[in-house]
């Protein structure tokens, strides 16, 4: 009976049952079989109100939604264009850098492709980049910045795994640069090969663009500096960011109307937060059941029988996470998978901070992996191209990102150097 219900639930989830309902259903079934009171579930959901760090999620999401409105994206593009546009393949580099920056600010929610695609894609085409190159670049750019503060997936990982968010922010910097750097080199190489036009660097334009972007450019750096100088916690940094961005958008740029537009943005951002946090609550309940039923230990015992080397585990982990990444969005993937994997990582001697960076990198790449990576579909509807063309267009970028993934996974120093250095 239970077996049939479990099977049915899995079937429903694959056919599109909202994940929070699927996870709650699984928790109910699990508690029922182990004879535990169902009230264990609300006890876990209430924990959403007990962790100060969770406050950072609605606040940063709100700030991100505000930043995705109005001219922020155009100002950021202009700035990086004036800074990097003179390189061969410069516009490609500009696209990668701006998109990552924007993703870090707005959370990895597919907003980047929608907000920046309309600006950067036509620009790439008009400068004679090949269509598939431009498509692949824009698609993969949609998930590249999530290693940088104040990325929401990092905060969630920190909460779920009990790892210090400050350390994770530091640890993400070098891998984050690597994951932008490798495709950037490719763009420079292609730009040379295709002999694309290179605008000359102009100090005047650079200063003008810098002045334009001067209000928004420092935000991630200020957040990082605030947290590291001990001036504020991540949550407090989120509150300061929100107030700063509200003042910026309403009083300085006058891009958002306080009474007409702001309430709508608040609602939209909190819908997204509701969608993530209700999965978080359900996942807390489900994880609680899993731990009570010794499931992670059982997986551990099974895996230990299967392999005994750290490398073997990491290889399997990468493959598994890529699969997860192309099936699920990054938030639910973190919430559901991290509690299961973490004891394994511990057993194989992998630092939880390093583990977090491996997770993020894998899931970011999974977003672009055929057949169902989310970015592919967002880009397909944004640029009005068939998904199959996007599979082909993203392939070279996917391979490059896999190289970055291998480096990040097998060289823990890339992730651990900075947090250890700044201890």
């Amino acid at each position, binding site marked *: 009976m239970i077996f049939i219900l479990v099977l049915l639930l899995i079937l*429903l*989830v*694959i*056919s*599109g*049952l*909202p*994940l*929070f*309902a699927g996870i*709650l*259903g699984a928790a*109910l079934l699990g508690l029922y079989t182990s004879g535990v009171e*169902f*009230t264990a*579930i*609300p*006890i876990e*959901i*209430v924990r*959403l*109100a*007990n962790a*100060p760090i*969770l*406050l950072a*999620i*609605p*606040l940063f999401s*709100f700030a991100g939604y505000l930043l995705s409105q109005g001219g922020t994206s155009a100002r950021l593009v202009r700035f990086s264009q004036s800074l990097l546009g003179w390189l061969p393949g410069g516009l490609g580099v500009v696209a990668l850098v701006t998109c990552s920056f924007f993703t870090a600010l707005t959370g990895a929610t597919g907003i980047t492709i929608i907000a920046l695609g309309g600006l950067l894609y036509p620009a790439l085409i008009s400068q004679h980049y090949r269509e598939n190159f431009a498509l692949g670049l824009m698609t993969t750019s949609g998930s590249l910045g999530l290693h940088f503060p104040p990325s929401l997936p990092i905060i969630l990982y920190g909460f779920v795994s009990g790892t210090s968010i400050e350390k994770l922010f530091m640890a993400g910097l070098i891998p984050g640069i690597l994951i932008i750097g490798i495709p950037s080199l490719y763009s420079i190489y292609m730009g040379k090969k295709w002999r694309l036009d290179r605008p000359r660097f102009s100090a005047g334009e650079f200063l003008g663009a810098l002045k334009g972007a001067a209000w928004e450019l420092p935000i991630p750096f200020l957040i990082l500096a605030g947290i590291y100088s001990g*001036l*504020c916690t991540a*949550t*407090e940094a*989120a*509150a*300061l960011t*929100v*107030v700063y961005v*509200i003042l910026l958008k309403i009083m300085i740029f006058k891009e958002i109307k306080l009474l007409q537009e702001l*309430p709508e943005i*608040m*609602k939209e951002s*909190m*819908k*997204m*937060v*509701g*969608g*993530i*946090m*209700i*999965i978080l*609550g359900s996942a807390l309940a489900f994880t609680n059941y899993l731990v009570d039923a010794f499931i992670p230990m059982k997986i551990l015992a099974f895996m230990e029988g299967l392999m005994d080397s750290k490398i073997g585990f990491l290889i399997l982990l990468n493959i598994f996470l890529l699969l997860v990444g192309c*099936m*699920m*969005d990054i938030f*639910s993937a973190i919430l559901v998978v991290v509690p299961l994997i973490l004891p394994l990582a511990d057993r194989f001697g992998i630092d939880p901070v390093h583990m977090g960076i491996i997770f993020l990198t894998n899931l970011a790449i999974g977003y672009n992996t055929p057949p*169902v990576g989310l970015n592919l579909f967002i880009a397909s509807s944004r640029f009005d191209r068939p*998904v199959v063309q996007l599979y082909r267009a993203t392939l070279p970028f996917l391979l490059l990102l896999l190289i970055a993934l291998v480096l990040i996974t097998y060289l823990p120093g890339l992730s651990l150097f900075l947090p250890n250095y700044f201890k």
Partner: protein
Amino acid sequence: MIVLQRFDRILARIEGWLIIAMLWLMVIFTFFQVVLRGLYTHGHLPWANTLMGQIDWSEPLVRLLVLWITFLGASLLTRDGKHIQIDLLSSILPPRWLPLRDCILSVVCAAICAIMIKVCVDYLSMEMEFGGTMFLALPSWTGQIILPAGFALLLTRFVLRAIDHGIQTVRSNPR
């Protein structure tokens, strides 16, 4: 049907107002806490500390609001049909089957929410009996009332969607 749509709209408007009010409270209180703490620790102003003591209830309040916003936001998200899901079928199934699928899924979600309401009511009655107090000496169950209420909102929304998709299913498959 028109009555239901009207009910849905009014409900959405109330949820929207609540979300906006709560988010403002969240932003303002958290901001003031940071500023006051900064004034006290870096500016050495004793009155900042006194004031912080006066509003010490704001920190747990703001954390509680996270829980409330979660459910209100999720309810509005249900209205848009935009919950996070693994959506393989919508590109495989022929379009005219999609309303039927969505109808079935909404019914399942409604059933799970109904069970959760019962579970949360049980939990709440336990809290009423044994639970302590939270900030401002309020009994802790008053803050947690959003659990059954939130699942009730979600239930309502899923039922409305099930009806909506049910009608579409009948319309798109005329016999």
